[in-house]
């Protein structure tokens, strides 16, 4: 177990900057997930930590050790590759024993470890098989077992579930969570799938083009996104982002979306006042737009508007509704029972306490800036 620290880490391939000034601390025993769009540098970050790629600048610490000059095999980390990279000429047991043999563990200890891993990952009766005779999920578990038996200080997982089908992915997700709770290892996890990230991690690190956009607990990055990119990346369906402007109105502040105006709640008025008469982006999650009749009627009427329903996607427990508000596209989530038919208009109301306002130049969340009221 160990703390991992990235300190001002940069990585360039030739002239392309792939990682820019990465600062990240992963606490001992913490499960941190890196998410971000394809090509943003997640794999590169893991590979630098594993020692498979050199840093161009900056330092990496594993435990209290400055890891930069340490070769991969001496870093005390284990990595599970997206492709699993099982050794095709070795049986499951031999694959699992590979790292232990290199450490010159005694034979009894190796056998005990294999048993332990087989138990943990439910690999009974597969020990003697070759990788080509395993299913995808089994291969994945063998890869995991091979890494876990080494009791690595840090476990690196690069999209370990991406080659599995949906059901298996859910099962393995639960499995991973269980294992982490049992072993309390430091885990750095990479995924494309934000649902996976939300459900597994202690903290999520969102990357964009080689930079960290935000690091925080799943709840934090969901409810307090630092910027437009994070807000757009986390949450499904995606947040609605609408160009708007802030205006003074009867001593209060309102945000003007064009077809409707919404009052800015009292606690944020001071934060928003400097943005008066400037272009901003209004962000509201689909699940925070409600049918007026289904919602507490005591909300100020000013936050409500009629929208035109265009598409309804029933998901069983709820419906995703694509609607239009005078030409502005809007996605919202309604209860399954709520009647909404394409072509009909529907009165909705914005839950302004959970809305976000972003600076349209920098993309930053005005309400989450350090001096604003929302940061606790």
């Amino acid at each position, binding site marked *: 177990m160990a703390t991992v620290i990235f300190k001002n880490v940069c990585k360039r391939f030739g002239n392309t900057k792939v990682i820019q000034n990465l600062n990240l601390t992963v606490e001992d025993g913490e499960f941190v997930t890196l998410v971000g769009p394809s090509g943003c540098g997640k794999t590169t970050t893991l590979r630098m930590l594993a020692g498979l790629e050199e840093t161009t600048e900056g330092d990496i610490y594993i435990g209290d050790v400055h890891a930069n000059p340490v070769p991969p095999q001496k870093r005390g980390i284990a990595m599970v590759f997206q492709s699993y990279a099982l050794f095709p000429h070795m049986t499951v047991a031999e694959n699992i024993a590979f790292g232990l043999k290199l450490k010159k563990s005694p034979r009894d200890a190796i056998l005990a470890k294999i048993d332990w891993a087989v138990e943990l990952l439910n690999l009974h009766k597969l020990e003697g098989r070759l*990788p080509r005779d395993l299913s995808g999920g089994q291969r994945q578990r063998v890869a995991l077992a091979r890494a876990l038996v080494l009791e690595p200080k840090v476990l690196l997982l690069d999209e370990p579930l991406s080659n599995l089908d949906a059901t298996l992915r859910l099962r393995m997700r639960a499995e991973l969570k269980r294992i982490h709770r049992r072993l309390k290892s430091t885990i750095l996890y990479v995924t494309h799938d934000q649902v996976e990230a939300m459900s597994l991690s202690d903290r999520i690190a969102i990357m964009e083009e080689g930079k960290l956009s935000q690091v925080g607990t799943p709840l934090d990055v969901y409810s307090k996104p630092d910027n437009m990119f994070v807000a757009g990346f986390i949450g499904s369906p995606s947040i609605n982002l609408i160009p708007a402007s802030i205006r003074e109105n009867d001593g209060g502040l309102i945000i003007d979306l064009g077809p409707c105006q919404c009052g800015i709640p009292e606690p944020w008025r001071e934060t928003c006042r400097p943005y008066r008469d400037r272009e901003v982006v209004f962000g509201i999650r689909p699940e925070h737009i409600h049918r007026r009749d289904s919602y507490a009627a005591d909300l100020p009427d000013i936050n409500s508007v009629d929208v035109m329903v265009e598409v309804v996607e029933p998901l069983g427990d709820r419906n995703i509704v694509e609607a239009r508000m005078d030409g502005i596209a809007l996605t919202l989530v309604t209860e399954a029972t709520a009647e909404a038919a394409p072509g009909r208009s529907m009165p909705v109301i914005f839950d302004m306490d959970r809305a976000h306002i972003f600076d349209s130049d920098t993309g930053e969340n005005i309400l989450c800036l350090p001096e604003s009221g929302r940061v606790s």
Partner: protein
Amino acid sequence: MKKTRATKWVWLTGMVVMIGIVMAPLFMMVKYSISDRSSVVTGGAVIPLWPYHPTLEQFRALAAMDRFAEAALTSLEIALLSVVISLIIGTPAAYALVRHRFPGALVLATFLISVRFFPDIVSVIPIVETFTTVGLVNSVAGVAMAHSLLSIPYVIFIAMGVFEAIPRDLDEQAQVLGASKAYSFIRVILPVALPGLAAASIYVFLLSWDEFIFAYFLLIFGDLSTLPVLLQKILSWTPQHNLLAAISVMLSIPVILFTFIVQKYMQTGATAGAIK
């Protein structure tokens, strides 16, 4: 595109002619090797297309002939030694060229591989002269070293293809699990590469087994011979057609067999189950 009758006939004729030309010498080789004396030395009469009295006496004669056994053994020793030399030297180099893309790797690879285009007839005299001064003429080691010069570029070329087909993840995974570069190369990558390398070694074996020029120049004044050299020597002593054909058959059989085995071997997926 539609085939007309005429093109079909042209095709068929071409096919028959081509197969005839390819097979005729091979047929003749077999025919002569089982010919009795009266079918070869006809005293002016037409040589029969099939021997009057097919016989294996030439092969029996070969089996009793010390020179033949010695030459076959020498050929075998030289070929095996050159396989060992060229695999030991060529395989690691191929691995380095594929996995460590240091600046200039491509140029270096091109250079090493294109050594095989260097004309052997040009290099043979300097090599014989050099080997004479260091005592490598008339020796198995000398011929094997010369053959390795020809085969190392092939080993590098084939092995580079083999290593390229093995996912890089395997090496990196081994290193992350605690293996050094050398260990992961020897214990992980080499076993996976084995089928491909087996094909390469068969190829190299055949290259040496067939080779005439270096063997001839290096062995001509000694008493060692490889099979091709023995064949040439017998030709210059007593051009006895059926004996020559019998040696030819013995020399060709392993080559023809192995060529087909290699073809098959190449197709076995080396990395089945390694990824995905």
